[in-house]
């Protein structure tokens, strides 16, 4: 696979990690480190930007030399709220990359396409590197790409559900059409789901609940990393095509030779 480059920055790992739901900041950091992820997202609502980073219960555990910290706008219910919190993150924390989440429904946390597009427009104009979380909508993905987002991040299934690639066909189309990296986000519950997303052509995956709520989050993070690597290696090995029918070992037209 070609190298994963987002906004000019190269990532050696195609596994990104969300930092919510872990039993402790230390456990989260250990999981991140053990899987070799180089990008984690942190909810701004959890970060106290007024405090120095070394005192923050989430950020303090992460080594910024090894892993890029991308704040997300989780909790924002419209574009204005998302933009406001992103500006605050830049102003107080120096963050230029933003994972854009606009989820007016606090239960399924499904992204609002209209407000996400509007927020992305504003943030791109202001020079942010924008990584929007979206439903697996190929047209929306193209619209976002047109306005200059750095990636698109379609969901595999509703967030936190661990159900796997329920939006497979739409993600396939997004991957086919995208000119920016596609990061499959939300709903991946097992390492095999992550592998399937990479095999489908996604450039990276983001996992959180599946890892944070596993009995052994560190081992699960490693398992996800291995699955992603296996899928990557498999693709590089140029897999034989899939066929609907078995191909006969004694062809019916063999006598023509």
């Amino acid at each position: 696979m070609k190298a994963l480059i987002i906004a000019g920055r190269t990532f050696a790992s195609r596994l990104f990690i969300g930092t919510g739901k872990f039993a402790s900041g230390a456990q989260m950091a250990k999981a991140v480190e053990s899987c070799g992820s180089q990008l984690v997202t942190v909810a701004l609502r959890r970060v106290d930007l007024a405090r120095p980073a070394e005192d923050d219960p989430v950020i303090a555990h992460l080594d910024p030399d090894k892993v890029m910290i991308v704040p997300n706008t989780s909790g924002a219910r419209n574009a204005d709220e998302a933009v406001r919190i992103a500006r605050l993150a830049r102003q107080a924390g120096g963050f230029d990359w933003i994972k854009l989440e606009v989820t007016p429904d606090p239960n399924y946390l499904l992204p609002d396409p209209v407000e996400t597009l509007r927020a992305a427009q504003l943030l791109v104009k202001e020079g942010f590197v924008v990584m929007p979380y979206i439903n697996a909508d190929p047209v929306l993905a193209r619209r976002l790409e047109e306005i200059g987002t750095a990636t698109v991040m379609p969901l595999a299934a509703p967030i936190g559900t661990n159900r796997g690639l329920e939006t497979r066909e739409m993600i396939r189309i997004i991957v086919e059409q995208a000119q920016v990296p596609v990061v499959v986000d939300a709903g991946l519950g097992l390492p095999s789901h992550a592998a399937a997303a990479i095999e489908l052509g996604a450039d990276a995956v983001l996992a959180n609940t599946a890892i944070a709520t596993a009995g052994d989050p560190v081992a699960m993070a490693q398992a996800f990393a291995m699955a992603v690597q296996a899928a990557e290696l498999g693709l590089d090995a140029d897999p034989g095509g899939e066929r609907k029918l078995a191909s006969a070992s004694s062809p019916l037209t063999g006598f023509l030779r």
Partner: protein
Amino acid sequence: MTEFFDMLREWPPERVRDLLEGSDCEQAVERALARPVPEAHDFAALLSPAAALRLEPMARRAAALTRQRFGHVLQFYAPLYVSNHCVNSCRYCGFNRRNRVQRRCLTIDEAVAEATVLAEQGFRHILLVSGEDRKAVPVDYFTELTVRLRQLFASIAIEIYPLAEAGYRRLVEAGVDSLTLYQETYLPDLYSRMHPDGPKRDFRFRLESVERAARAGVAFLGIGALLGLADWRVDGFYVGLHARWLLRNYWRQQVSVSFPRLRQASGALIPPCPVDDRAFVQLMIAQRLFLPDAGLVLSTREDAELRDRLIPLAVTRLSAGSKTTPGGYANKADGEPQFEVQDHRSLAAMHERVRQLGFDPVDKDWDCAYHSP
């Protein structure tokens, strides 16, 4: 949209009791446990005496749902009592206007001083609580206080007398993001008996406060029934029904349920329907199974041992180090508390305990910046 008030009429207490005590209850519990999303009749089965025999599988499912939805995370808040002046005569309450207790209303400066103590302890979510007396603490009081507190807190909640929509809108503009308002009981006849006079007699105005707040833009809605006034199974059923109705009709809002268990307050009546620990646990886990996305809140009304045991089950939010007397934090006030705190552990002690139990204590899980320009 069917009004919740009308929906309550479709579920008179007799209908709820029939479900709770039906001959088919044991099978109904099994069906409810097998259902991906329980319906109202399943919820009644989970609250029934028959389900009391199935607490363990219910608890396991409740814990798994809570971990999946909320993770290994517990969020903390502190109540700040600003006034115990009250114009109502709730028969179960220590702030009852007929009680001869020392009344106190904090000035804005005093309230800010109290809040500063809480902020220094590490709290970032605060709940402003007052008795129901809009002359002692008018809406202006709360808007002014909220504006001053926004520098100190990530989230500001109120638990005050019910308001019209315009009142809630003013509070939202000032920076209030959360409302807690207990209906006390969803049984109208009992409600009338418990609230013999004062503006609180208006059952429907109180019932629909939460909707008015939602329309005004309050993001987090907290409801509950006082446990001890009525049969907990019946009132618990209505609380769940109300929460789900709110979730369906106000889909942008997050809904949470509290479990205020009545203790005897001075000058107040002995709870007519006491709720024991076993019932308390059944109620909490039944709510979780019925409302997988709802926040479940546990205050310091409960003692340390029970709180510790409930943390891994279904709780998502806890108060800590609470004082229920106006001026109790900064001024060592000795006035009448609204209720006796049973768990006196500080925020720091709770953090430590929660970590021992395998959870991440979270003080900040919102940001005032979401609301303000």
